[in-house]
Structures are given as structure tokens and as C-alpha cells.
């Protein structure tokens, strides 16, 4: 049975919170907000194999659990390995480490840097005449970093149209609301003014994300920016309110509640994840 993208996104969330619960630390809500974006990217849009495979840089490296969840869902790593995240000896570091996990196109963690690395990949692809496309997901709070704007000026200046940046605009950062801490609004007009093909979408509407990714791919002469409005903690109701779950530990009780909420969103109970570690608890 082919798994629908909606079910994929729920399974990514289930995998990510399992890893976060097991780790006892990490960033839950900012990982959940981008689950639908990664679903559309990795389960349809991106060319994942071959010489001209597309590149993906997670500039908001603290959302690593959802990217590791994608790798598990793709079968590139096991669920057992996913649950080793943040533990000594694991390839799944708290923030992505490419030297430990070569599946990653870039190790990230210090905010503001991934966009530039993505541009380096894009320049290399253009130099070689490769059709490879280059994606980078960053946060709206992360856009406070000056380097993001250096990258934002550079890509249009050199006409890099094999680049698509995606802002996971969930409206929050570590200390609170991005609009209150250091507003980067209006982001759409700002990026457009610098020469980007800006597509503003609902970051949880998977068909809408797919359409935007296709429009970005077909757009020539300019880099594309998908400004995705998202909800931090999306999919787990008690995480969707406020900013409490930026990096809060998911204890056993909360984890059980989250699993119930998420499993109820699956179209078929058989799509629930099977625990490969033998530790019980529904995962």
C-alpha cells in the first residue's frame, strides 16, 4: 500500500518525538513545524539519488530530529538508530554532523550559516552544468542573523536559479515571539526586493507546498524563496500553544499523550510505527 504524504508527515512526527523523548533533550516544536515541508521535499520533489541528486541543507540545525526522522522513514537509517539520537557514540548528533553521518549534505547548528553553504553547492552545480537543485530550510528567527542577508543579496546578484530557500516561519524563537524580539517582517517584500522569486504559502498544506516547490523549480533567472507560515509544535495540540516546547523535555506522560494524538491522525492504524528496539511503549 502506498503511504499518502499526509500519513508520511504524521509518521515523521511520531519518529521525531520518539527520538526526542528517548534522548530526554532536544528541540521538539521547531522540528514538528517543518514536518510537512520535509514530507513534500523528500517524498516527491527531490531527486535523492545519482550524480545529479539534489542537495539539502538544514540551516536550523536544531530541528535535526525531523530530518533524522526523514532518513528513518526513507529506510536510510533504522528506527533503532534514530532512537540513539543525542547519545554517546550515536551518528545522530544533537545538531547534524556530516562527518559522523554522511547522509547529510552539511553539518549545521550555529544559526545563519546553512544558506551560504547551500549557495556553494548551487555554484558548484552550475559550474559543472549539473541539473542538481539546492534546498535550504531556515527559521524565521534565524533570519535575524546577518549572514542570511549576505546570502540573500548574493544569490540573485549572480542569477542562481537552482536554489530554493524555505523559511519555516513558525513565529517563535528561543526566548519568545520573533515579532517581539527582533522583527524581520515583512519578510516576503524584503526578499522580493532583493530579487527573489517569493512564494508565500501555508506550510502545512502539503499540496500547496508541492505546487510551490514545482513553481520554484520551473522559475528561471532568479532564486526562489518559499515563505511557509507554520505552527510551532504542529500536530501535537499541547505543543501548538505558545513557545513552551521549544526545547522542553518530553516526559513519559506527555509522550504517551502525543503518540495518541498523532496516531489518531493516521488514515489507517496499520501505519503506526513498530518498535524495533523492543522497549515497548507503542514505538
Amino acid at each position: 500500500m502506498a503511504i499518502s504524504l499526509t500519513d508520511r508527515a504524521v509518521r515523521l512526527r511520531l519518529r521525531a518525538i520518539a527520538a526526542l523523548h528517548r534522548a530526554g533533550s532536544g528541540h521538539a516544536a521547531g522540528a514538528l513545524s517543518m514536518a510537512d515541508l520535509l514530507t513534500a521535499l523528500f517524498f516527491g520533489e527531490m531527486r535523492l539519488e545519482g550524480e545529479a541528486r539534489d542537495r539539502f541543507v538544514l540551516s536550523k540545525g536544531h530541528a535535526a530530529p525531523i530530518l533524522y526522522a526523514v532518513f528513518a522513514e526513507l529506510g536510510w537509517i533504522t528506527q533503532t538508530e534514530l532512537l540513539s539520537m543525542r547519545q554517546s557514540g550515536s551518528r545522530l548528533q544533537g545538531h547534524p554532523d556530516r562527518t559522523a553521518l554522511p547522509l547529510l549534505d552539511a553539518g549545521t547548528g550555529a544559526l545563519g550559516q546553512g544558506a551560504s553553504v547551500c549557495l556553494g553547492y548551487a555554484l558548484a552545480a552550475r559550474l559543472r552544468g549539473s541539473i542538481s537543485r539546492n534546498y535550504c530550510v531556515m527559521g524565521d528567527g534565524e533570519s535575524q542573523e546577518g549572514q542570511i542577508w549576505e546570502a540573500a543579496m548574493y544569490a540573485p546578484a549572480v542569477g542562481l536559479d537552482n536554489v530554493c530557500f524555505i523559511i519555516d516561519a513558525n513565529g517563535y524563537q528561543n526566548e519568545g515571539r520573533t515579532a517581539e524580539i527582533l522583527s524581520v517582517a515583512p519578510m516576503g517584500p524584503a526578499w522580493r526586493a532583493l530579487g527573489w522569486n517569493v512564494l508565500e504559502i501555508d506550510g502545512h498544506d502539503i499540496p500547496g507546498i508541492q505546487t510551490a516547490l514545482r513553481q520554484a523549480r520551473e522559475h528561471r533567472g532568479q532564486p526562489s524563496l518559499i515563505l511557509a507560515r507554520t505552527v510551532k509544535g504542529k500536530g501535537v495540540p499541547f505543543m501548538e500553544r505558545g513557545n513552551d516546547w521549544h526545547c522542553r523535555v518530553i516526559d513519559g506522560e506527555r509522550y504517551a499523550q502525543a503518540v495518541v494524538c498523532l496516531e489518531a491522525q493516521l488514515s489507517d492504524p496499520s501505519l503506526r510505527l513498530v518498535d524495533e528496539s523492543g522497549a515497548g511503549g507503542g514505538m
Partner: protein
Amino acid sequence: MEALRDALGKALVAAGHRHPDLVVVSCDVRTATRVQGFFKEFPRRSFEVGIAEANGVGIATGLALAGLRPFLTSFSAFITGKNVEIRSSIAYNRAPVVVVGTHGGLIGPDGATHAGLQDIAVMRSIPGMRVFQPATPLETRAMVEHLAGDRHMAYLRIGREVVPELLEPGYQFVPGRGVVLREGIDLALISSGSLVHVALAAAEQLSRERDLSIRVVNLPSLKPVDRSLIQRCVEETGLVVTVEDHDVSGGLGSIVAEVVGECPAPCQVHRHGLADVFISSATPEELARIHRLDAAGVAAVVLAVWDKHGGPRRKAHRPG
């Protein structure tokens, strides 16, 4: 006589012909860093990122991860100031980027903001980062050729001085290997980069005037460093002076002192260079005089060290 940055520019063009994966990233100083020749010769493999060094670091990282060999070029003071970007983008990814910092040392009237005087300390603290500094035009060419064919991350520090050639044709640069430029048994004077020429002149002067036998060592590879050569200097001379156009905290002096501290034989190390200060605007010659980094200044420092530690020790060892 040739400026090392001119040697750098020519060496990059030559290496560019032999290594099709070599690319250059510039941060709006391609004339001053002398990489404009590469830009002219290989426009498609040249990337001008503007006055945006952080983005330049990231772009170089992506180019390197995609299999190319980028030389990221700017003034040493500016580019090594992007510490968290170099650390987290280049080094954390073990991306094979060569960071080239020109204008290391006492650069002259542009003053403190433009002079790279802490760059070695910053760069050598980064995991996996090699640190090299050439003393002559030939050594510059040899280093560039080595780096063009290599996949390690490295920092290449280039001074602004015009210097003569010291090395024999056919000189091969080997990471981790130092070079004895002048033999001697009383004291080892260890340097790197264009200060090597000053060290040699000071050694000649002290030989003439005081009959001192001073060994002059060039350390082009600061990380990895030639531990066995430093150890030999300790065993054979028992007294070490380092001379550098960089802060003595974290630079050549620290590097040598760390190795000497791990040697079994006790040995005094005197670190001569900039000590916790910014330089000011002046000609390079005036700055060298002010900071006692000209031949007369280095000779005076070495003599003082000799009189304090070397002479008495020798008397004790060789009574009568």
C-alpha cells in the same frame, strides 16, 4: 625580491592550470590579495562575494563539499575574524577549504584593524585546521602547489613584505617539516614567514659582533609543527628564542614553547613578538623598529636573552 602576495597570485594561476577543481573566492580585495590574475585567467572558477566574508566562508564550504578545492581569500585580520563561521561551516564539516589570509604582520599605515596579528592563534585552535606560512617566493609557490593537490583544510598566512629568495630550487614543502637555514650551537632562533629574513640578519650580526653561533630555523608549517626539529634545537643548543610578527600568545612562540615544555631536557624559551597590543599606523620599517622586529631589535633581544640565560649556563657547563 618579490612580494609574497605576488608570488601567491602567480602560483594560483599556475596551479589553476594543473588543477581543474581549484576555484577562488574573493571578498572584495582581489587586487590587494593579488588573486585578480586568477579571476582573469579563470573567470568561471572565480567567485566575488563582496564585503560579506561570512557568506564567503559558507560558499567556500559548499563548493568544497561538492568536490571542488576553494581558496577563500581576504585579509587575514578580516577572514580569520569569522571564527564561528570557519569553525562551524568549514571545520565542523571537514570541508577542504584553503583559507588564505594576506596582510599578516606589521602591514603599515592602514593600522591595527587591517593587520593580522592574532590570526595564527585563532586558526590553530580550530580542530583539523592546518596552518602554514611561507617565508620566500619559492616557499609560497611550493605551498600553493601542495595545497592545490591536497584535500586537508588549511590556513595559509601571507605577509605583505617584499623578500629575497633563500631556498634552493627544487625545494619541496612538506607539512610538519621545518628547515634549518643556518647552523649554530649557542642558541636556536626560530621564526616563520618574512621574519625569517630578519632572524637571519640578526644571527649574522651577532656572529660578527659577539662571536655567537646562532641556529636559525624556519617553521613554514605551524600546525602540524616539526616537533622533532624543535626537540633537536633544545638538545643541541639548550636555549630558544622565537621571533614573530604576531601576538606571542597563541602564535609561533606559544607553539614552540608548548613543544619545548614537553621535552625531557629543560630549556629556556623567550618569545619575541607582539605582546597583547594593537599596532598603530606607521611605515612597516618604523613599526619593525618600534616593536623591535627589525634585525637590530631582534639582535638586541637575542643578546639580552643570551646574557641572562645562555652565557652563565655555558660558563657553568664549561668551567674555565
